[in-house]
């Protein structure tokens, strides 16, 4: 695949048409949890509820195991996956604490001190990645 201009940004998944196509059923599952009646059905029987959404086996596993970063890698978008998190009582900031691997407290502390600096965070080479 041709490299995209934003592929060099580290620690970032741009939700573009390719991701949107890949994640369609996963995202539609997540957004269904916006409504209480659907949350109730999902929480009663996760496997049965997921049967209605023809997502890939990997995506389904990632949902069941709440692998937040993998969900994004497989086409999930944060505004959708955050509905699954909210169902579990995890807000945006706590979800970020998990996705960054920092943990909730150090993440919150970093934000209080002005957030993650742009310095050293512009290009994958700065993260030792290709």
């Amino acid at each position, binding site marked *: 695949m041709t490299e995209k*201009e*934003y592929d060099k*940004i*580290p*620690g*970032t*998944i*741009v*939700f*573009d*048409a390719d991701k*949107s196509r890949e*994640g*369609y059923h996963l*995202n*539609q599952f997540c*957004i269904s*949890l*916006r*409504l*209480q009646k659907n*949350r109730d059905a999902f929480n009663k029987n996760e496997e049965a509820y997921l049967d209605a959404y023809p997502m890939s086996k990997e995506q389904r596993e990632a949902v069941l195991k709440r692998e937040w*970063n993998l969900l*994004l890698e497989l086409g999930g*978008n*944060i*505004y*959708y996956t*955050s*509905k699954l998190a*909210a*169902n579990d009582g995890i*807000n*945006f*900031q706590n*979800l*970020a604490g998990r*996705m*960054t*691997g920092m943990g909730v407290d150090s*993440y919150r502390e*970093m*934000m*209080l001190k*002005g*957030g*993650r*600096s*742009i310095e050293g*965070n*512009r290009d994958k080479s700065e993260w030792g990645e290709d």
Partner: protein
Amino acid sequence: MAKIMAGVGCSHVPAIGVAMDTGITHEEYWRPVFEGFKKSREWMKKQNPDVIFLVYNDHCTAFDARCIPTFALGCGAEFQPADEGWGPRPVPTVKNHQKMASHIAQSLVLHEFDITIMNEMEVDHGLTVPLSVMFGDIKRNDEWPALVIPLCVNVVQYPAPTGNRCYNLGKAIRRAIESYEEDLNVIIFGTGGMSHQLQYKRAGLINSDWDKRFLDLMTMDPVGASQITHLEYLRETGSEGIEMVMWLIMRGALNENVTEVHRHYHVPASNTAVGHIILENNA
């Protein structure tokens, strides 16, 4: 004739709405965020707008992945605050100036901005949080002090419309509003931003220097701001910082020369840099 008096740029962080709805705005964490809107609320009272044209983005509430319009104009009579997964915000139903919205829709299409017309639409925090921060606490059984015409912009699936397109759409919106026959005071809001990344391993990115330059450009060099590329937004301001293209719609609807009457910048509100500016059209 209707006239655009001023523009407001403002973040729409959901946690700001939660802080107001749960009455914790006086707490140490939130006080500095809300301090910066004190003057704005006084200013809003003085302006007493009839209509707010509010540019915002929906967060997969009215539009999930089934349908992703780049620009959608609210033309229905009213819009209910949506349940985003934790119950609807306890704020009033948003009422439209329906006749003016239809006039704008028609004018935009005839000037080659082919927007989507929404006659049924729920509105999420993207729209209600800016109203709350600018008007203060308005309870569910009260009424918003102004009518609201919502314009919803896709910034969730890449690519968002370019800054240049947004700036030019702002000009077309102004032409539409100012060709409406009724004498109405209109204020346009551009919302979202500023720097923030909500997702993946770089979450928490904040770029205050960049944000402050963007605020400077809003006042002094909007054409320069309209040329900022998507790559720059994504890299320098985080994957969700690209919401700032919506401020350019607001800015395009103002004179080239404006007076900056207020500015506020604070980090953090949850994961986000809060930015706010008020620009008045010079008479």
